[in-house]
């Protein structure tokens, strides 16, 4: 898939896009290796079963990495310079959960070329897993 190639002039408040993703056990193991976060809540099924979650959960920042995909591939895509993001983790994401990532343009600053995007990541079952704000500059 090629990234979108939106120019600043193409983007307006209210524009949105979405995509779907789920994470496999291999994804979690790979992220644990890449990040060095091998916390047993993500990597040890026996440990995780004894917690209130009852099973391993996907790293919050692995789920949050979908924000990078959103801005880098969808809005604005190719011309994106990712400036900042803030995330709130509302509900745990488990291996195999089907997620829907939706981003909606909240503001567009023509003078600074900064676009602010509200991101929500919902489970297909309806729970909101992540809510966040991303700020990008359109190059």
């Amino acid at each position, binding site marked *: 898939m090629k990234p979108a190639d939106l120019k600043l002039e193409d983007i307006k408040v209210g524009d949105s896009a979405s995509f779907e993703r789920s994470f496999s056990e291999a994804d979690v193991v790979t992220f644990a290796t890449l990040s060095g976060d091998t916390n047993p809540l993500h990597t040890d099924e026996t440990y995780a079963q004894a917690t209130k979650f009852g099973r391993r959960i996907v790293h919050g920042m692995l789920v949050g990495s979908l924000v990078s995909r959103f801005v880098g591939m969808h809005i604005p895509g190719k011309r994106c310079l990712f*400036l900042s993001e803030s995330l709130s983790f509302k509900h745990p994401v488990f291996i195999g959960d089907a997620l829907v990532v939706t981003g909606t343009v909240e*503001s567009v*600053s*023509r*003078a*600074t*070329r*900064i676009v*602010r995007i509200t991101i929500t990541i919902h489970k297909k079952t309806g729970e909101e897993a992540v809510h966040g704000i991303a*700020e990008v500059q359109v190059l």
Partner: protein
Amino acid sequence: MKTFEHIAEEMLHIPKEKIGDDLTPKDVPDWDSMNYLLFIAELERAFKMSFSMDEVMNAKSLGDVRKIVEARKK
């Protein structure tokens, strides 16, 4: 509602007691080019106004930025 001072404090990390119109990037360690643009974008959102590119480029001090915001409020 956020004030100009709140936004300057939040985005440029200027201690509240030091905020003044004569401040320039030389006086504020975190006033770099990107934080400045984020500051401007936050002002635009908070006050529902737009800067022009010339205004962004030509403002040299915090007071210059404040004058633009106050002119738009009138």
